[in-house]
């Protein structure tokens, strides 16, 4: 067992854990942050996407021990109480959510993209979510929602 100290959704946390478990399991089992989903366990579907130091990563491919001293943001850290982030609002407005299993991860990938590139082209949006599989939506409304989010976030 090891003790880990890291920043989770803006708060410093410490946790005792086996070093071999995945970040995904740590978040879901120890912190009950179940907005992070497991779809494949091999880094292909992207449903377990979280932000690590601002970058979108697959939490199924990161061992818990690797996050010592790092900053992790999950979907639960994107929402401010009941106030949705503008990206989340656009996802709802443009119908970008169907079954919703990939949605938290999509929002985080979009969040990481817009942080780094506030005015992405459609191709850049597609690149940013190419690691997030969605079987329901055909991605169209997701791309539209991210595009509209970019417009709104840059207009302020």
């Amino acid at each position, binding site marked *: 067992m090891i003790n880990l100290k890291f920043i989770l959704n803006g708060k410093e946390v410490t946790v005792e854990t086996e070093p071999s478990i995945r970040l995904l399991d740590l978040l879901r089992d120890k912190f009950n942050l*179940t*907005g992070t989903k497991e779809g*494949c366990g*091999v880094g292909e579907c992207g449903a377990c996407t979280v932000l690590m130091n601002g970058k979108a990563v697959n939490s199924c491919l990161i061992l818990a021990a690797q996050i010592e001293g790092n900053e992790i943001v999950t979907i639960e850290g994107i929402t401010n109480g009941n106030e949705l982030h503008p990206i989340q609002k656009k996802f*709802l407005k443009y119908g970008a959510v169907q079954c919703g299993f990939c949605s938290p991860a999509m929002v985080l990938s979009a969040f990481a993209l817009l942080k780094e590139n506030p005015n992405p082209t459609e191709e850049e949006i597609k690149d940013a979510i*190419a690691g997030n*599989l969605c079987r329901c939506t055909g*991605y169209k409304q997701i791309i539209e929602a991210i595009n509209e989010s970019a417009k709104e976030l840059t207009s302020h």
Partner: protein
Amino acid sequence: MKKEFSVVGKPIIREDGFDKITGRAKFADDYKFDGMLHAVMLRIPETHAKINSINYSEVENDQAVNSIITFADIPGAKKVGMIKNDQPIFCDEVIVTPGDVLAMLVGEDVARLRLALSKIKVKYTPLQTLTDPRKSLEPDAILIHPELGSNLIIHHPLRKGNIEKGFAESDHILEQTYTTQLIEHAYIEPEAVIAIPLGQNGIKIIGSIQNPFSARRIIAAVVNLPLDKVQVIQAQLGGSFGGKDDTMCILSARAAVAAIKVNRPVKIRYTREESILESYKRHPYILNYKVGFKNNGKIKAMKIDILADGGAYCSMSPFVTWRSVVQATGPYEIENVHTDVRAVYTNNPYTGAMRGFGSPQPIFANESLMDEIALQLGIDPVEVRKINGLKAGSITATGQKLQNHDVNLLTVLDTAAKETDFQNKWKKYKKDKSIIQKYDFTKPVFNDSQFIEPDQLIKKGIGLAASYRGCSLGAEGIDAAACYLSIQNDGSVYLLSGLAENGQGLRTTFSIIVAEELGITTDNIFYLETDTSRVPDSGPTVASRATLMGGGAVKNAAEILRGRLEELIRAEWKLKNSDEIIFHDNKILTTDNRQLTTYKDLCKLATNRGVNLATIGWYKSPNVDWNEHTGQGDAYFTYVYGCQVAEVSVNLGTGEVYLDKITAVHDPGTVINKLGAEGQIYGGVTQGAGYGILEEATTENGLIRELNFDQYLILTAKDIGEIKPIFVEGKEIYGPWGAKSLGEPTLELTAAAISNAVSNALGKRFFSLPLNLEEVLLGKKLRPVEVKRGSLQ
């Protein structure tokens, strides 16, 4: 006078959207309970084997193992099925396909349980396997289920007119064989379920279950409890597409058996590999079509022979192939039709329901054939379809006269062709030759100008496909749905349908229907948790029947309550029975726009007057009929029509097909939920495109090679171009305000349209899905060789 809709057809934010977008929505694996244990499956790496003995001695005292759950622990039915009870919960004597499960270990830690699995000693004798469905009915074929006496799951014959006479009267005869592949639903959420024992009160199940009532029926049979002691609650469902039905019924039953035995909650959660290994797939079809037609393009006769690989279990094969037999000619009026559709057992992964349900396969065949007829006669694809297309009053292959609905085939065809400038593009692309197609590879290259630039490798093509599709279950079975609706004294509303949200947005659609009827907004409506103990069995959420049937029941419930409120208004405000009352914008108005009261005050008044503001709504389909010997009858009570046009660029160097644009024209009657309907088209087209160019689960002696998304590829955001949805709305008599079906029609056409587009680009035809790189370049599928490295064989 047509009333303007307030909510119907408007972009309404999903009822479950907030929870889903914040990660608060609870999917099955997100539930945890005190004392909850986990279960893992025991399998053997074989396709077909006799189990001689299972020795658990090394795990019996293992601290990680709380309990071993076997065949002997099942209190009730040992074998189950949607149609035929041929699928064991646990296999005790034989396994017939690699996904089969022998037993389960239950304990606290999944990792330790998996270690324990490897200590169980299973002695078995491998048996001969049958993996080629073409050999299933041969006299010397091994029997997958010897007790059934045959590998034939079902045979649907259809006979209309005189097929020999039809061919005799034809000027041309064309015969082709097409094949389609095994594919995976690829819902992003793997299967998960928790069974919670309730002692005297039976068992409660929470799971990623597409059809809670089907699951309840099977769990009740397996644990030998009456239906009212089996409560099935649907967690948020992370995609299904027809796929979380049989598998989830069986997983739920296994969890229930274990939970009752250990008297603690038991969770089963599949990895992606287990999910792909054990869950059922889309049927691969082998389709033989012989068509006779006149010089003027009129089809005189069509003889169709279809073989579906049902895999190891019956599942939904009889119904899947029944839809195929009804729709196999495509949306064309043909005098003489002779169709045989058979589904057979093999040792392959079993096949069952998947969005489209027996339609994408014949559509690929018949729509390829229509283009071939056009080419042979020198007419264009639109023309040949117009000559033969179904119109109002046409007689279908099953002898059904098309009436009581808008027969929109020619409308959707014309709309799609006009929107895409189809005929001009089709002729141009057909004539265009890429430099590489004119290239003489025998001559040496002398100078730079002879090099081929990368963009010269791209060749464009356009293709279309059209279909008609029977709505809802048709002659498959009883077709009725229920809805519970209860208005509170402050005007807020509880709503619950007997149909289940699959992610498509059914709750939102149903909320819109109630809001429209009562003149309120959807945020006044609280959609209750889907629970078999709270609402009547409404059949399964399948066959694109939710809006039509479930929506019909919701509208019925809302009309009943509105009727009671209107009766009260007439009494209170002394109105005549003929006076129309308007419920609009939370107000109750007369036709001369006089406000009588607010909706809220009316609900309060109704409560004070003792009016019953709760009800069960009901919607039952009109009758259909079917003769199983002749394949004749009124198969479905209404139909929808669709046409999709695919515009592609083909890379002649790599065989890659780029999907530039798909135009999807559909006639769902009335669009209730605009965002949801558009989402159905985007998603359905994208799935259909994956079926067309990419997806295939290949098997080696029945075992799937592609067990995760690193090998089983579905389309990403970068793989699909523009999608243009177009709705041809009409006035229909069935469903809420005439809303019919959309979910499956959106998927069934895309692969066929793409194949026709690639053919238009390359001037050669394709007979085998998917059109992956090697199919496009070489005209065949490349498979790993059977001979292993180092082998002498």
